[in-house]
């Protein structure tokens, strides 16, 4: 009896360990993401040149690995600016805006979702109507309209990418709140006289943390894409600042003379979205098996 129990327990532990082991691909993704974030943070320290230093004699040089000089490892752009420096700063801007935008979207969505689920009534109707509206519109168009009315600036861009993903958070969190609100133990706490605030913070929030983490990852790569797309169209980050999307857009005009100008920032964008998507899928499997398709 005890032997069988011990064996069963050992089996369960093994299963748990197996489940917890992170697949090598995901480890690689975390390493790449960590590296990209480190490069973004350290950009001002490690960038070999100033972002704006032009050198018209050194225009459109190829990268070192394609026969260029090692002075400009990734070559130079149409104004002779060092591409390694520009890609590092572009990465910094892109990741920075995406991080702030994701946090804004999450905060807005979670707050409205919790309020909507907890209080119901007209507040719920209003929030859900806004969610419906935003879900039924292509967000790029909303972003373009806001930018057209408020003009292009970093603040407007952050604002736009901030409101990009709130509705998914709000919807999921509201659903979770409604589900948790009906659980017997939550009803019991309320019957014991716990205030709404306490129920929200102590019982509802811990239950929605997992889906929030998963959604935030999904939203992060969406926001990277949105910022890149807007900057690519010339309506996001403005010179002299740059972002990966802006570099891709600028590089497109000179790809006949130096194809690496659009290729390198494009590759970095794809790397970010792939890595974050893979991490997001993995997080969903680990944290929230119910959302699996």
């Amino acid at each position: 009896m005890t032997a069988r129990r011990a064996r069963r327990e050992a089996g369960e532990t093994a299963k748990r360990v197996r489940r917890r082991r992170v697949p090598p691909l995901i480890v690689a993704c975390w390493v790449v993401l960590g590296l990209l974030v480190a490069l973004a943070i350290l950009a001002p320290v490690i960038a070999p040149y100033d972002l704006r230093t032009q050198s018209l004699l050194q225009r459109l040089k190829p990268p070192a690995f394609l026969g260029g000089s090692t002075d400009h490892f990734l070559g130079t752009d149409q104004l002779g600016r060092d591409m390694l420096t520009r890609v590092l700063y572009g990465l910094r801007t892109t990741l920075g805006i995406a991080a702030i935008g994701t946090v804004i979207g999450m905060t807005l969505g979670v707050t409205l979702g919790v309020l909507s689920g907890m209080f119901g009534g007209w507040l719920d109707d209003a929030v859900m109507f806004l969610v419906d509206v935003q879900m039924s519109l292509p967000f790029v168009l909303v972003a373009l309209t806001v930018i057209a009315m408020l003009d292009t600036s970093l603040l407007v861009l952050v604002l736009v990418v901030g409101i990009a993903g709130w509705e998914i958070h709000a919807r999921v969190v509201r659903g979770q709140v409604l589900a948790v609100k009906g659980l017997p133990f939550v009803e019991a706490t309320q019957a014991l006289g716990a205030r709404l605030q306490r129920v929200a913070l102590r019982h509802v929030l811990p239950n929605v943390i997992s889906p929030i983490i998963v959604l935030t990852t999904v939203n992060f790569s969406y926001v990277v894409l949105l910022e890149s797309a807007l900057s690519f169209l010339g309506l996001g980050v403005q010179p002299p600042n740059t972002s990966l999307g802006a570099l891709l857009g600028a590089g497109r005009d000179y790809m006949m003379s130096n194809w690496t100008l659009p290729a390198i920032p494009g590759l970095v964008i794809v790397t970010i979205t792939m890595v974050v998507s893979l991490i997001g899928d993995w997080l969903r499997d680990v944290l929230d098996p119910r959302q699996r398709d």
Partner: protein
Amino acid sequence: MHHFVVKRLLRGIATVWFVLTAVFVASRVAGDPVTFLLPDNATPDQRAELRQRLGLDRSVVEQYALYLRGVVTGDFGDSFRERRPVTQAFVERLPATLQLAAASLALAVVLGVGAGILAALNRNGPLDRFIMSLTFIGQALPNFVLGIAMILVFSLLLRWLPSGGYGDWRSFIMPVITLGTSSASSIARLTRSGMLDVLKQDYVRTARAKGLVGAAIVLRHALRNAALPVVTLLGMQAGVLIAGSVIVETVFAWPGVGRLIVTAVTFGDFPVLQFAIVIVSASVVLANSLTDALYSVLDPRVRVA
């Protein structure tokens, strides 16, 4: 069924009304509309004249009523960049965008449903894994990166295809693939999971027991039921394709509505943008409502709900 469709329709109308009102409020909050509606070099006389014509000397409520009347009668004002009605500028570019979107959607459905069925029938086999990896890449690859990568390879390196512009069939290949890839990937994933669900069902086993061969089961019994979520997704693709065409048309210098919208934002051509957002939200809402109606035709259970 009628009740369901009517409810969805009312909701759609409310959405479009909300968008109209938001654009109105935002344009008043953001500043004097005359500065949006007239080019920067307009004379004070022109400004005063436009102010009167738009009824900006009246109360906000009256202005709002006038604005809604303009929308209903199809009077969205003139594009100041092209100096003609925005509706005219829009209609002129619509065919190019519709051709691009229709071709992309067709490609996405054929590729997506085909790949999804193949993947489901080879569940967890090498082909399934290969298709699923492709769809993952297809979903994570941003269209502007894909478009430029294709131009680099097929126009610059191999010189097979034109790098942009609207011409013969060859000019369609890259824009259509670029616009259709992410839709194809979503459709493939959904078809696969739908098929896997359906293939487990008793009636599929029954069909097999009756002696039906593989293709008949897949096409007649399984696919029809697996198609339901895909139909919903197709409705949602209207918005995805419109958003995508804004980018893809810029990448490939495609003379369509998407390009018109980007130019309007760049030049502050507000009437064009206002018309674009109204017409796009209306068509997306319409597409979603039609999807719901189609859904209730395909799945009798929905009619009750």
